[in-house]
């Protein structure tokens, strides 16, 4: 199992001592015999024995951490347990075993009242099918979490109106959900989830029900919002491209197990399992990797080109410039210090090269 998060948390710039969300060995097991088997197992869960007893693993020993302001995307195909994991963390479903901490507090030990308070103040969630209340207008839907909390009608309506402006639905506040397009409905869902100013934002396949064009538009919108709001985000999707596009870190799940949890670049460069590699093979790497990811050691060369590229720049954006430059190009960090070099060869390798493993197998096939 390769579900450790090891050397990959370097992107989280905050060095807060505790993660906002922390899951430790979380299990969600379905089936009639689950309780009986759990009682027998004394905490040591043997997957085979459980499966023989007719149990099904929704989530199998998942551990992850999300830090403040970070966006972790859980990616997996249908049935991989990604939504189940999200539901465990939001406690919409009960976790079979393991522990979950929100801001250091034990989520699973909370009683109904504490949980309600937590949700009213700290959590917001967006759903795949929007889950708007059909009998309420856009405005009322967005104000709903505030009203449930006991905010006065006047204040909650004012706040809801702000949210409507934020997500760009101005003028449609008195529409009913059924009168809106899918994209607009999801804007309402987003506005509603943000109405209480939560710290933690859960998104369960928020854009999967939308057309490709609208989806792209909503992703941009989402990035814009996140730039402004800087929430701690747990985002679930089955779309690997979407994950690459949005995530700080990606956790790839299969059959309830987290196969790999790392930054997009590391996942593309070093897929941990064959399953992960299947996703990364067709990824346009120049769109994912940054100069910092592929730069070489500075070494002895001192003959640099005049242009310099920042470490965080995506290859795609600098490729043409580097290719037109006969000399090596310096890669600089935030302080303008040179930390590595890029040359034509490395760019061409990213653009047209194949993975070593793959090249090898093609050669073998040709040899036979």
């Amino acid at each position, binding site marked *: 199992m390769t579900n450790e998060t090891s050397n990959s948390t370097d992107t989280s710039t905050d060095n807060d001592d505790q993660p906002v969300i922390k899951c430790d060995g979380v299990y969600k097991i379905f089936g009639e015999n689950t309780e009986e088997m759990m009682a027998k197992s004394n905490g040591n869960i043997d997957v085979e024995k459980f499966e023989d007893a007719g149990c099904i693993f929704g989530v199998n020993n998942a551990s992850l951490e999300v830090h403040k302001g970070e966006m972790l995307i859980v990616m997996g195909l249908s049935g991989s347990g990604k939504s189940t994991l999200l539901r465990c963390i939001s406690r919409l479903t009960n976790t079979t075993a393991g522990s979950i901490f929100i801001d250091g507090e034990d989520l699973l030990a909370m009683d109904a009242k504490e949980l309600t*308070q937590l*949700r009213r103040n700290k959590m917001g969630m967006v*759903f795949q099918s*929007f889950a708007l*209340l059909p*009998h309420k207008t856009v405005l009322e839907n967005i104000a709903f979490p505030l009203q449930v909390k006991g905010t006065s009608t006047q204040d909650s*309506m004012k706040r809801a109106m702000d949210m409507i402006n934020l997500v760009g639905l101005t003028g449609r506040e008195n529409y009913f959900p059924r009168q809106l397009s899918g994209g607009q409905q999801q804007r309402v869902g987003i506005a*509603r989830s943000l109405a209480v100013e939560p710290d933690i934002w859960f998104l369960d396949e928020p854009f999967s029900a939308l057309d490709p064009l609208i989806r792209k538009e909503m992703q941009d919108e989402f990035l814009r919002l996140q730039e402004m709001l800087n929430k701690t985000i747990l985002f679930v999707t089955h779309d690997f491209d979407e994950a690459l596009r949005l995530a700080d870190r990606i956790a790839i799940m299969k059959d309830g197990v987290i196969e790999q949890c790392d930054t997009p670049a590391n996942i593309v460069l070093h897929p941990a399992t064959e399953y992960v590699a299947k996703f990364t093979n067709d990824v346009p790497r120049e769109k994912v990797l940054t100069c910092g990811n592929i730069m070489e050691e500075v070494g002895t060369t001192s003959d640099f080109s005049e242009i310099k590229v920042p470490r965080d720049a995506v290859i795609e954006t600098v490729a043409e410039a580097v290719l037109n430059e006969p000399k090596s190009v310096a890669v600089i960090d935030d302080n303008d210090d040179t930390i590595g070099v890029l040359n034509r060869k490395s760019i061409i390798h990213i653009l047209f090269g194949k993975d070593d493993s793959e090249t090898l197998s093609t050669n073998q096939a040709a040899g036979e």
Partner: protein
Amino acid sequence: MNHLTGHLARHPKLVQFAALLAVFFVLYFSIDPSENNILWRLPAFLAAVPEMLNNSVEFIMFEWLPIETYNVEIEDYETSALMIEITRAISRSVLFCIEFIREILIGGQKTIVAFTSWDFVSENKWARWPALPWTVVAGVAITLGYALSGRWLAILVGCATSYIAVFGQWEPAMETLSFVLIAAPLSVVLGVFLGVVAFKSQKFETVLMPLLNVAQTMPHFSYLVPVTVFFGVGDHAGAIATVIFATPPMIRLTLLGLKGVSPEVLEAGMMNGCNKVQLMFKVLIPTARHDILVGVNQVIMQCLAMAVIASFIGAKGLGFNLLLALNQLRIGQALELGICIVLIAVVLEKLSLGWANKQIDYFADLSFVERHKYPLIMGGILVAGVVLASIGGLIFKDGINYFYLIPHNKGLTTELFWQSGVDWIVDNCYSSLQVFNVGLIVNVLVPMKNAYLGMPVVATFVLVMGIAYIVGGLRSALVVGGLLLFIASTEWWDRALITAYMSTFGVIISATIGLISGSLCAQNKFATKGILLVCDTFQTFPSFIYLIPVIMLFGVTDTSVLIAVIIYATIPATRYTVEGLSNVPQSLQDAGTMSGVSRFQRWIQIELPLAFPHIMLGINQTVVFALFMVIIGAMIGTDDLGQLILKSLSDEFGIGNGLMLGLCVAFIGLAVDQILRTWANERKKALGVA
């Protein structure tokens, strides 16, 4: 021949059916009809049950758990049974509510009496609540209609109230209204409550469901007997019977709606921080609103359908007058009263719908007058109405103030017109109608009735259980057999056969008409909409209304009952046919068209097979509707179970008989329901359209 055997091998059920029919006819003709032959008629094992029921009800009412109560009249404590005190308390509070609303509408003294005494009221002549002028009630209702849903509803309400007032039915209409305004909200609240409990608790649902099945197939009349025993006679008894009758569909639809709420909406509610109460009242129930509103609609329809039936146990109002008019064969008056009932039903339904769909504007910056516009208008109407009424007092000298209250039967009436119409029909068509009538009775009805009555009990069991077995397997066969066994063990098997014969006849004709007209209308979008509207309208009419025109034409005979049954029971058959056919996926229709089918081929080969399971559910409804109508037909004289139920109503110890008879009717319905529903579900599964 080869072709035939191949065909039969592909449809093993056809062979089974043929074999079953063969066995049935062998039994039919070989069993000797004699009273002592157990194969001919089962002995009435359950004959003693009604008596036992009577005794146990008596015990519960009058002897069980005696408590000490203080009697104001004799100023002393006395012992009385717990149950009778409870039912008395319920009766009193329901009656108080009804009287209260009634007196707001048409004035009276009983509310004041409730707080003081009869002596006080008779000593003080002023102690009488004045009636609101009819103009005020109408004006307020119109304003309400406008406030809730806009101009068109206001116009509808205006027409309805004017009709009622102008035709001189104001007082009975308000009496009926006061009774519906109590019974309907009570049923809705009770239904939603029980629906929510059933949604929360699987166990409760398992217990409740069979009870609902029985309750919804019991004929209206059989509720009346137990209600009179427990609650006596009067408006409150009528309201309570109505509540008992109207609540089951409300429960069912609430449960259906709650179960249909998408899990994501539920999760959204939880994530928005709803506690359990908020989750139920702010998320689940409003989201399930569509089905719940259908339930409210059903409740209002049931309440008005019960208006007539409740008048048997003392409910005043339009229903009572309608019953009287029917008994006196005053067709015109009955028709006018029937229209009043329909109008009240439509208005109440539209108002409740408008109320549920009301939208609030949070940002409109309104002045005090604008915000309280409608209450102010209603206040104005009150003042204007009172002024108008006092002016009316000066204008009309003959003691009748038409601006205040148009007394009963002092309004317009079209009775003469209808009466002359009836006379004209009788004069001109009597002989041909009579020929048809007699021909039908002699050539069809009597032979059919005799054929049913000539069935040995064993043959009936074999036939019905056999069909259930072929359609739904052993379990269905046992359920149906159990239901039949109950009926066969009472002393009313022959009566049940007559009920069955009338319903069968009605169902066959209704289903045929429904299937044909439904299929024709489904061919065209415009016609589809039209026929659904017609079905809606006809369903609004209380079942009693259908008796009016048929008595007019055919007099008091079996033919009248059957024609009323056919009209009433054709509605669901037509509706479900249209719905089933228009729900056939467009892609399949297109596929058919591209394969080059003609319109008729498409109907036979694509549409009908796919829609048939749904149509079968319609036939199922048709059976229940037909049974209800056959029982109501007892009003105009039949000799089946209905007549006995009617008789038990006027019997002091009728509760046992009434209940058992009601169960017999319910069980006929449930047996058919079991077979048809199982079949429809199997087919739906097989076609993948479940």
